[in-house]
Each structure stands twice: as structure tokens, then as C-alpha cells.
């Protein structure tokens, strides 16, 4: 009683620390996607014995998340970034959630991919996997990814990373085949190490700036020691570079992404690396721009080597999904190229590319899953003649390969265009060369895959000119659930590629907000102390 009396007596002595009013009901939309995913995941865990309802309930939950996120996206597009601080504390004391256009857009793409993967999985599931909690894990993974996209607090970002990590561990080993254990050991250790490095960076940034709120950090950093901040930025670059599988630290991705079920690897390819990329964009461009300028040669080197080496890796693989893993890595190189070009056009290119990569890479893995079902093989040497067996699959694969390579009029062309334009603006000819060479190399690697899987009549060796007798027809369930969901996702990709205006505008606004953080800071509502 006494202290509260004192507080009201001298209001001028301390700055206000709490909001007196409740949050407007409409603003809860900001944390609703995470709440729905967490609650639905927990509920499904409790109801794990009633197997009949699991898939339907999970799909409904993700549908609800998509609806909320579309609404959130429109609101952010119309009125600018939206923020909310937990427990009515004022920032920087409470944990802040912020949706800017980049976070909201990525979160929306992530939940769309999750929905498609859930439908695809209906053709794949075996009861054993359901018992081990596939659906709760997917929902928790989505909660982690969405939380990471929407949080405005660095330590909270770490927590969401760990939520994502532990559910991805579970999904990685679901089914328990030997090859999955092998992949999971490499995936698990290296990703855990990466988040630990992230934690080291967090500790340093807290010690030197005294805050973990992103908006607050971007205000405090200009006054902090530039050398120390650059060291911290380099730590974050290492941590998130590992998460994103950029070139020198990419080895875990092709070692593990082909081991789980196709639906799970599609989910991973779409969501996990992109969260690392998102965190890097946020930290390098919005929070520590001065350190980014110092690290610019490093970013350029990573971008160029990743762009060039990844498609060469894909060329050298015979395992289909391992080859696709290298194409995922190539996309990460394109995002790094945008980070090395800190103008609006370059950063918008990076954001657009990450968005495109979420959709396209998931779709590629889903189509790879279909191919593996039709050919009953995982190695391209044992595939062949699928063009005659299934034209939808071959058309989808070709569209996605062209999209990944960045050929017009598909979705991947537009971000590559922005990146090339940014490189010309900055007279950065090395990056321009790497971006264009990546397109050529990716289309070579991709069309070779297409030729071997679809065009060649039979399997490799002496049967190559004979009809492939190992092909099987898709069952009706596979046809409707698996192939249908893949067609839906490819349809979305083609449509967005033909009418890219909304994504262009959004990527431009997102890049603007990253490069000048004023709108973000205003939304969070941090008082600038003179």
C-alpha cells in the first residue's frame, strides 16, 4: 500500500513502466497465430489417443491461423507495423511482439506451406507415426516459426528458435529409420551449436547495450562501441549462417534433409532455413547497420560462393532430394546477395527471394515425394520414364525448377530481377555475375534432373532405352491428397508469379522499414530519452 501511495505522489520522478489500460481486443490478432498453434498443439498432445480427429483438427487450426494472418497482413499493409507488449509493461521492459510487413508476410507463407504439407501427409501417414505425435509437432513447429517472425525481442527470438528446433528434432526422427537417426545426429548437433552461438551473441549484446528489445537496440547501438558491435554481428552471422546453411557451414543440410518423409522435408525446406535468413535480415540491416557495412566483404564472399557452389553440388548428386537440398542452399546465397546490397532494391530482392523460396522449395520437395512414390526409388539413376506415367508431376517439376532458377514468368524471376538491378545500382559486378551464373547453373542442374527422371524412357544403364517397369500408379488417396495439394501449391506459386504486384509492393515497404527503422520504433512505442 505504502509504495503505491508513493508512486502516485511523485509521478514525475520515474518514467511510466506500465500501461494502465487493457490492450484493445483487435490488437490480440498479433499474438493469435502463435496462441492458436501452441494451444492446438497442446490439445492434440492431450488427445493423442483419439487418432481419428487429429488430422482434421490440425488442418482446421492451421486454416484459422491463415485467416488470422491474412487479416494481420492487411492491417500491417494499411496502417504500418503493429506492436504489443506482454503483461501491460511498457517496452523495453516487457516482451514485445511486433508485426511488420516482412514478418507478417513470411508468417503467412509459412502457414500456407504448413497447410499444404498437412494435406499432403494424409497420403503418407502410417499409424505408427501418428502415435508418435506428428500433428502436435507440426503445430509446435509452426508456433516456433511464427513466433520467430513476429517477436520484437532478441531473447524471445532465441526461445522461439528452440521451440522450432525441438519440434524439428521430433519430426526428423519420426518413423525411426536408421538413415533418419544418422541424419538427425548431424542436424541436431550442428543446429544446437548454432543456437548456442546465438545465445553467446545475445549475452554480449545485453552486456554492452543493456537491452534486448529490438527497437531499443536499434536506438542504443549507434552510441555503442563500433568494434565490439561488429564482433557481435559476426557472431550472429555465424550462428544464423549455420541455421540458414550458407556456404562454409552448410554441410548439415544435404546430410539430413533427405532422410525424413517427403512431407517433413518439404516443411523443413520451406520454413527452417528461412527463419535463419529472416533473423539475419533483421539483425544485419535493421539493428546493426554500421557493423553490416564493415562486414560487407564477408557477406559478399558468402553470397557469391554460396550462389556458385550450391548448384554445382546439386549437379554432382544422384539422390534426388539431396540434389534439391543444394538448390535450397543456392536460394540462401541469393538472400545473402541482397544483404550485401544495402539499398531498397537489393534488400527488397532479398525479402522477395526468401518469400519465393518458402513456397517453391516446399513445393519441390513435395513433388520429389510424388516422384519417389511413382518410381519407388530415391536415386535418380533408378528413375526414368515418369513423363509418360504422369504428366502433372512432370509439368509441376519443370515449373518449379524454372522458378528456382529464376526464369520468367515464374515467381523466382522477380526477386532475381530486383537483385540484379540492386547489383547494377551499387556497381557490384561480382554479385551481378554470381546471381546470373546461379540462374544458369541452377537451370542446368534442374533440367538434368528433369531429363533423367522424366525424359529418359527407363533406368540408367542397359535398360535406359526400354520402358521403366518399376513404375507404379498413384493410389486414389495419393492422387487426391498428395498430388492435389502439390498442384494447389504450384498453382499459388504460378498465380503469384503472374501477378506479382502485391508482393513487389510489400517487399519494397518491408525493405524500407528495415533500412529506416523509424516506423518500427514508433510502433513499439519506445520513448527516446534525450
Amino acid at each position: 500500500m505504502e509504495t503505491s501511495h508513493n508512486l502516485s505522489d511523485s509521478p514525475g520522478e520515474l518514467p511510466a513502466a506500465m500501461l494502465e489500460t487493457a490492450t484493445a481486443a483487435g490488437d490480440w490478432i498479433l499474438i493469435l497465430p502463435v496462441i492458436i498453434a501452441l494451444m492446438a498443439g497442446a490439445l492434440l498432445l492431450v488427445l493423442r489417443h483419439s487418432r481419428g480427429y487429429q488430422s482434421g483438427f490440425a488442418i482446421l487450426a492451421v486454416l484459422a491461423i491463415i485467416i488470422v494472418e491474412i487479416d494481420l497482413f492487411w492491417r500491417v499493409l494499411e496502417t504500418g507495423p503493429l506492436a504489443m507488449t506482454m503483461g501491460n509493461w511498457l517496452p523495453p521492459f516487457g516482451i514485445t511482439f511486433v508485426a511488420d510487413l516482412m514478418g507478417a508476410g513470411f508468417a503467412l507463407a509459412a502457414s500456407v506451406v504448413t497447410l499444404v504439407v498437412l494435406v499432403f501427409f494424409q497420403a503418407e501417414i502410417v499409424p505408427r507415426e501418428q502415435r508418435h505425435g506428428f500433428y502436435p509437432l507440426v503445430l509446435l513447429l509452426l508456433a516456433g516459426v511464427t513466433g520467430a517472425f513476429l517477436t520484437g525481442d532478441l531473447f524471445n527470438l532465441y526461445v522461439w528458435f528452440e521451440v522450432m528446433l525441438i519440434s524439428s528434432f521430433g519430426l526428423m526422427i519420426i518413423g525411426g529409420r536408421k538413415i533418419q537417426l544418422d541424419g538427425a545426429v548431424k542436424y541436431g548437433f550442428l543446429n544446437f551449436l548454432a543456437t548456442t552461438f546465438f545465445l553467446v551473441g545475445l549475452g554480449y549484446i545485453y552486456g554492452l547495450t543493456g537491452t534486448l528489445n529490438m527497437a531499443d537496440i536499434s536506438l542504443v547501438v549507434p552510441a555503442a562501441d563500433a568494434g565490439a558491435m561488429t564482433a557481435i554481428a559476426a557472431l550472429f552471422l555465424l550462428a544464423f549462417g549455420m541455421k540458414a546453411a550458407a556456404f562454409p557451414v552448410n554441410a548439415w543440410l544435404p546430410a539430413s534433409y533427405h532422410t525424413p518423409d517427403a512431407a517433413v522435408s518439404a516443411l523443413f525446406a520451406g520454413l527452417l532455413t528461412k527463419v535463419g535468413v529472416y533473423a539475419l535480415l533483421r539483425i544485419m540491416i535493421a539493428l546493426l547497420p554500421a557493423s553490416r557495412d564493415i562486414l560487407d566483404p564477408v557477406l559478399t564472399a558468402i553470397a557469391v560462393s554460396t550462389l556458385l557452389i550450391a548448384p554445382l553440388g546439386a549437379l554432382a548428386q544422384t539422390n534426388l532430394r539431396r540434389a534439391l537440398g543444394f538448390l535450397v542452399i543456392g536460394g540462401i546465397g541469393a538472400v545473402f546477395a541482397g544483404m550485401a546490397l544495402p539499398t531498397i532494391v537489393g534488400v527488397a530482392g532479398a525479402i522477395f527471394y526468401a518469400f519465393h523460396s518458402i513456397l517453391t522449395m516446399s513445393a519441390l520437395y513435395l513433388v520429389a515425394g510424388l516422384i519417389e512414390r511413382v518410381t519407388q526409388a530415391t536415386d535418380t539413376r533408378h528413375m526414368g520414364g515418369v513423363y509418360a506415367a504422369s504428366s502433372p508431376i512432370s509439368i509441376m517439376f519443370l515449373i518449379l525448377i524454372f522458378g528456382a532458377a529464376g526464369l520468367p514468368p515464374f515467381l523466382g524471376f522477380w526477386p532475381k530481377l530486383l537483385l540484379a538491378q540492386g547489383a547494377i545500382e551499387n556497381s557490384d559486378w561480382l554479385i551481378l555475375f554470381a546471381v546470373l551464373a546461379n540462374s544458369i547453373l541452377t537451370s542446368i542442374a534442374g533440367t538434368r534432373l528433369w531429363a533423367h527422371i522424366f525424359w529418359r524412357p527407363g533406368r540408367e544403364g542397359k535398360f535406359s532405352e526400354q520402358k521403366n517397369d518399376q513404375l507404379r500408379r498413384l493410389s486414389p488417396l495419393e492422387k487426391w491428397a498428395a498430388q492435389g495439394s502439390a498442384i494447389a501449391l504450384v498453382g499459388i506459386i504460378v498465380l503469384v508469379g503472374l501477378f506479382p504486384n502485391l508482393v513487389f509492393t510489400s517487399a519494397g515497404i518491408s525493405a524500407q522499414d528495415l533500412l529506416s527503422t523509424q516506423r518500427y520504433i514508433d510502433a513499439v512505442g519506445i520513448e527516446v530519452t534525450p
Partner: protein
Amino acid sequence: MTEFLMAPFVGAFFAAAIYLILSRSVIRMLLGITILGNGVNLLIFIMGRVSPEVPPIVPAGALRPSELAANPLPQALILTAIVIGFALFTFLLVLGYRAYQELDADNTDNMRLAEPKNAPRPPMSY
């Protein structure tokens, strides 16, 4: 001042952890991961500045805790990190044990199922 005395310990933790993680044996890598986690927790603790043992409680009648009070935030951060790190470590421990049972290998050099040792050459056709 205490910070400077404790900093070398963080360095020692990191050195030991990195040495162990670079090993081929999964069980050593696990030990390295644990030690690394402890090193990071100590680092966060030191970054929050070590101060005399004054609890961060606002005395009756005052508006703010005394200047000497301990910083409670790093402790909250470390507590979170310990819980999360322990959960992930437990998972990796079980994973390592299962991998040892199924793949009959504690040596990562022998874990070549996902990445076969003599990988076939890429197809030469087309």
C-alpha cells in the same frame, strides 16, 4: 572487478567445449555441448555485471532498488537457457544412444548411411 576474474573461466569452458566437440566420438561431443552451454550461461551472468549480494527488492518507502542491488535479468535469462539447453541435451543424449544401438557406431566417421562413402558418380548421360 569480479568480472575480470571470472572471464578466464568462460574462456576455459569454451576451449574445453570446442576441443570436445571437434572429436569424432558422439559421447564426447555431447559432453562438449554441455560444457559449452555452461560456459555461455556463465558468460551471460558476467555480462549482467557481478555485484555484492544485495537482493533486487525495492526497500519500503523507496521507489527504486539500491544502486548495489544484483541484476535479476541475467538470472532469468540463464534460467530459461538452462531449461531449454537441458531439454535439448536430453534429446541429443537419447538420440546418440539410439544411433549407437541402431548404427553400431559411436564414431561419426562410421555414420555414413545418409551420405554414402563411395558416392556414385553423377550420371554422364545428357
